[in-house]
């Protein structure tokens, strides 16, 4: 179905509860503008996209919109010859977008950095991990402070494969992310670690779905958000375990650190379980910075502001401690360190 035939989602839908479609559409919602492709560099080389008529696998308004407004796609393959990929995406016009199709045939790592000075930016990623592949993927959103960003990702993980996913979300003024992972094969595994920092008036809305479609699959999701000033972090999640998915082990944790009276955080970690022999758990917590920790650091010479900044950095850094791949972990830590000391 084309974008204009799809119904506009309303607030009763879990995905659109806090950020309406109208807020993330770049123009008027009954228009599909022609959006210029962003500049994409892979391992330092500018790469052209293919013009394709790609239909999203899921009939969903963001995915359909991104496909129709920009009919180009970058096909990225991870194989033995290209196992380490550095992708830089740069926005340069008022409205930019890019679409990626990633196929991991063998193990490797990908770092993806999004930057640029834009009003609106859209990105869609469709990733497929073949059997027996370990892929480490890290993404950093480092757009200019006034940008609005719409992002969708769909990951499919085959038997005996592992996706190690890390994200640092610090750019833009309003972000709507919809990340879905489908564990399709036995012994497939996902570890997803996301760190979010919302300062000034930044609103970061992450919707994360993990679907266990096969038994003996594992997933672990950690979302840590720190909000200062009028920052607003939203984390909605759905952990779904299908029928006949015994021996599945799944867990989700959402943690929010609120640093000012006007900061806000929302967490809705949902759980739908249709198999009985599983271990599924989720948790959410929200708190302010521990005064004792600030006091401890101040006795060692930190000003209150510096002490708070150190604690926040430590809180977010801990998101990436579990990432095994050195390249992706360092990529995320370096970006966080740069951001913290700017």
């Amino acid at each position, binding site marked *: 179905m084309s974008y204009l035939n799809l119904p506009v989602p309303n607030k009763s839908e879990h995905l659109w509860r806090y950020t309406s479609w109208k807020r993330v559409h770049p123009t008027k919602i009954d228009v599909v503008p022609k959006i210029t492709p962003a500049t994409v560099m892979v391992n330092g080389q500018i790469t052209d996209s293919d013009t394709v008529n790609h239909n999203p696998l899921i009939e969903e308004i963001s995915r359909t919109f991104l496909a129709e407004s920009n009919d180009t796609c970058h096909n990225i393959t991870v194989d033995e010859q290209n196992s380490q990929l550095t992708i830089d995406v740069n926005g340069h016009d008022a409205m930019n977008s890019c679409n990626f199709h990633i196929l991991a045939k063998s193990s490797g790592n990908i770092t993806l950095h999004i930057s640029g000075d834009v009003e609106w930016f859209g990105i869609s990623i469709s990733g497929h991990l073949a059997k027996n592949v370990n892929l480490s993927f890290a993404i950093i959103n480092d757009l200019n402070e006034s940008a609005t960003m719409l992002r969708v990702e769909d990951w499919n993980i085959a038997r005996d494969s592992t996706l190690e996913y890390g994200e640092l979300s610090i750019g833009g003024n309003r972000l709507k992310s919809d990340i879905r992972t489908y564990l399709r094969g036995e012994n497939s595994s996902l570890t997803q670690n996301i760190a979010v920092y919302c300062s000034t008036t930044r609103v970061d809305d992450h919707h994360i779905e993990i679907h266990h479609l096969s038994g003996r699959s594992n997933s672990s999701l950690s979302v840590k958000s720190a909000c200062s000033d009028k920052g607003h972090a939203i984390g909605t999640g759905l952990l779904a375990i299908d029928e006949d998915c015994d021996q599945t082990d799944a867990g989700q944790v959402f943690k929010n650190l*609120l640093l000012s009276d006007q900061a806000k955080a929302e967490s809705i970690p949902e759980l739908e379980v249709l198999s009985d*022999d599983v271990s599924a758990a989720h948790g959410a917590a929200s708190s*302010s910075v521990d005064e004792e920790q600030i006091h401890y650091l101040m006795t060692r010479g930190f000003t209150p502001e510096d002490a708070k900044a150190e604690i926040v950095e430590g809180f977010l850094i801990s998101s990436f401690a579990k990432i095994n791949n050195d390249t992706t972990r360092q990529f995320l830590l370096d970006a966080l360190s740069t951001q913290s000391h700017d």
Partner: protein
Amino acid sequence: MSEEAINAVGDYQYGFHDPENATIRFDKGLSEQVVRDISELKGEPKWMTDIRVKAYHHFMERPMPDWGNCNMLESIKFDDVTYFLRSSEQTEKNWDDVPDDIKNTFDRLGIPEAEQKWLGGVTAQYESEAVYHSIREDLEEQGVIFLDMDSGLKEHPEIVKKFFGTVIPYADNKFSALNTAVWSGGSFIYVPKGVHVEMPVQAYFRINAKNMGQFERTLIIADEGSSIHYVEGCTAPTYSTDSLHSAVVELIAMDGAKIRYSTVQNWSANVYNLVTKRGIAHKNAVVEWVDGNIGSKLTMKYPAVILKGEGSHAEIISVAYAGEGQHQDAGAKVHHLAPNTTSNILSKSISKNGGRSSYRGLLKVNPKAHGCRSKVVCDALMLDADSRSDTYPTMEVGNSSADLEHEASVSKISGDQLFYLMSRGFSEEEAMGLIVNGFFEPFTRELPMEYAVELNKLLELEMEGAIG
């Protein structure tokens, strides 16, 4: 209960029914005239009739919720429901005066015996209205008002007018609008300042007729520094056609007061149980919901507390058992509006034989509510692969000084625990029963002992055949 009746109702021990001897029975279906007729029959003041009519129009205009079990909700046939049925001409104060067939029902349910032993007062509601009501003399002397809601409106209209619909306005949701339009029966309680009602008071709700709708309305006001424990139970016969139960319960705990509201819901598996329950806690007040859901076809019930006064506290313990064909969509909501308010939510559910249990919760902290603390724990047990368990929690935090925690887990009964008990001589079924009783123990220990024993028996009955 006759053998024929036992065969007819299967495992559900309260599925018997008595012949209908209604003195007044409205035709099926809902219209403004039905609403006006109910009000006129009860001789209500005009302001109440007006609220009913407004609520009726809101109910008709408001769409069905588009969340939860939409398929089940859409299957409710509102035109097939009888909205008012009077079984007895008046509310009696002596069991001997209650019509024999109704009295027999409550005898079988053990209500008169319980009243003698451990209750401070009892209301027994049969179909649309209370048939029996009593309160201990010492409580009456202390100024405690415990009436059925219809009598409450007649005898204390000024209190009812002041508080009715202030916690749950008719436009709150579709089913609160329905209840406000056609409410009948329920309890009205006022506890004066500083009075502590030491023994629980109880209301028992029974639906007997086919396609019956029961819409009781309960209003409990605990004045400053007072306390009360209210217990409600409910059962219905098993029919092949569905009945509808849509109650509204409003609790108001003034400064320093405490209200505990305990429910053991055991409707038969043909009852839609769509209930709105909410309490307001003023300064340093405590509102506690202890909510057990064993029966019904579909339950949608999320007891809520609005922590309006500084230092107020909410405690919600909710358990649900979802068997074959059942969906227990239960949960809890707490709004922290004032500083230094605290809340605890504990939810436990069991799904078996294709049953579905859902926890749906909301925890909201207002920007001005400094120093709030809250903890939510949801545990679910799945006893077979055909069942389903969902958790839909929402946390909205608008104040940086709030400390909130939520944790949930879904698992099956541990093989180690079963093995341990079986190695000590228990059969697998007995061992499972013990583990389930232990799982629900945080709920049962909060109930009066007689209720806890009854609940454990019920669970044992439900667990029969769980193995193999």
